[in-house]
């Protein structure tokens, strides 16, 4: 099948800082793609380029075969963006925020669409309150709803679950899975790795602007393989990666305090690849 998003050697440089370094990706339609990476890895930069907000320093990016630099208007018609920073109009009401956005996208039947979304996001009672008076989580919810007003074919969610309570976070996971059924393509960034493991068909791990891994969560986990022995040493949690269960038991026996033995998960992979916690 033809890819929905194609980037080729995509790069972005800010003065002498390389924020994104030669990213080449192909994302098929209907995929939920997770973009992971430590702070400053270049995730938001990548999304800004794909959503026509930032111009790449080199390389190309195409969405649905439209070039983001040369055919920006065609790209803008296809996308919905939930940015990392909440950029709602604080001095306008929730309804007004969605209305302006819908009009920018020339949405027909806008009132019905807004009502539907506000009900879905559990904000209908606050529809006519100023966003300034909303809690952080409510603002985040409205931000996600806004990205959906135009029924985008490609949805960008840059850390959408930051600051959401567990209940609402779960609702959002369900929503993302529902959206997937309707065939939309989703690019998701998150620092909650288990979220990516659960939701994403594939994940790419960025580190200092470079793509250092790209596969399904299961395949990435399988590549590292084995078990993790977690121990608590004078208040510090330590993680030890071992090949198999037997080695894990042997290790556990030598530990004076409580131990947890578990299979490797995506977070272990992430940490090993980005080089922070695990030592083999």
């Amino acid at each position, binding site marked *: 099948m033809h890819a929905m998003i194609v980037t080729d050697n995509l790069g972005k440089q800010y003065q002498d800082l390389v924020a994104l370094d030669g990213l080449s990706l192909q994302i098929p339609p209907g995929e939920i793609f997770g973009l992971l990476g430590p702070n400053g890895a270049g995730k938001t930069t990548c999304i800004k380029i794909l959503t026509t907000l930032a111009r790449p320093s080199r390389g190309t990016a195409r969405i649905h075969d439209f070039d983001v630099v040369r055919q920006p208007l065609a790209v803008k018609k296809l996308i919905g963006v939930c940015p990392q920073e909440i950029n709602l109009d604080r001095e*306008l009401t929730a309804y007004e925020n969605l209305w302006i956005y819908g*009009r*920018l996208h020339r949405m027909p039947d806008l009132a019905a669409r807004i009502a539907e979304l506000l009900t879905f996001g559990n904000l209908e009672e606050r529809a006519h309150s100023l966003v300034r008076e909303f809690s952080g989580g409510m603002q985040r919810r409205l931000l996600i709803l806004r990205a959906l007003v135009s029924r985008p074919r490609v949805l960008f969610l840059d850390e959408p679950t930051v600051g959401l309570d567990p209940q609402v976070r779960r609702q959002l996971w369900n929503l993302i899975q529902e959206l997937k059924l309707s065939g939309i393509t989703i690019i998701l960034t998150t620092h909650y790795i288990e979220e990516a493991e659960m939701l994403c068909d594939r994940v790419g791990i960025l580190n200092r602007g470079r793509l250092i891994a790209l596969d399904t969560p299961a395949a990435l986990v399988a590549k590292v393989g084995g078990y993790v022995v977690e121990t608590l040493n004078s208040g510090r949690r330590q993680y030890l990666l071992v090949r198999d269960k037997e080695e894990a038991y042997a290790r556990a026996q030598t530990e004076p305090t409580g131990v947890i033995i578990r299979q490797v998960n995506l977070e272990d992979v992430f940490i090993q690849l980005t080089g922070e916690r695990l030592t083999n």
Partner: protein
Amino acid sequence: MNWFPIFYRELLLFRRRLLRLGYVVSALFSPMLYLLAFGLGLGKRVAMSGGTYLDYLLPGLIAMTSMTNSYTWIATSMTVGRLHFRTFQVYIQAPVTAADIVVGQILAGMVRGLFASGILLGLGLFLSTGLHLNLMFFLVLVLNCLVFAAFGVIVGMKSRSHEDTATFTNFFIMPMAFFCGTFFPVDEMPWLLRDIIKALPLTHTNRLLRFPFWNLESLESLALLSAYGVVCLALGIIIIRRYSE
């Protein structure tokens, strides 16, 4: 063209601020101050071009008010939306053109400028009989708002901080308010300064608002004002088209 949502958003923000009374007071504070201090202070004593000083001053204050209000609103709103609240990103990521954004913003700035100068105009009708309110007068007022709202777009896009906006204001807007014939005739100025002043848009707005009748000089002024408007508008579109974070 899809400029309406951009225009409407600014109007909603404007309306909300309008409801806070302090805002109207602050928008009209300086023209009122000048009107009281100079107009009423010197008004009856100093005669100027055939009328009282108040008659002379009033069209100038209307021009100045339309300038500062159109400009300030848009320059501030765009700077803050771009740098602080990041709401400007929404426009860039939406399927609207740079021209849509510029037109929407300029129209909103014009509403604001016409609102403030309209109040002053209404007040002036009680104080002075020297105003010539004809079609050209209003045409020029609208054109002046357009020119300075368009300049506001450029400043709003180019400022790297709130202080930057203030610098633009101090370098371009304030000198025009004082030198372009708002308070005293341009002809009294030394020659080099006079030539510079005669190239500035507000000089021509002042001239036209004081003498809104068709003749060669007014046509010249109208043409110059329009040229300023077109250039600022085009620059605004180019800057927004090139926008990248």
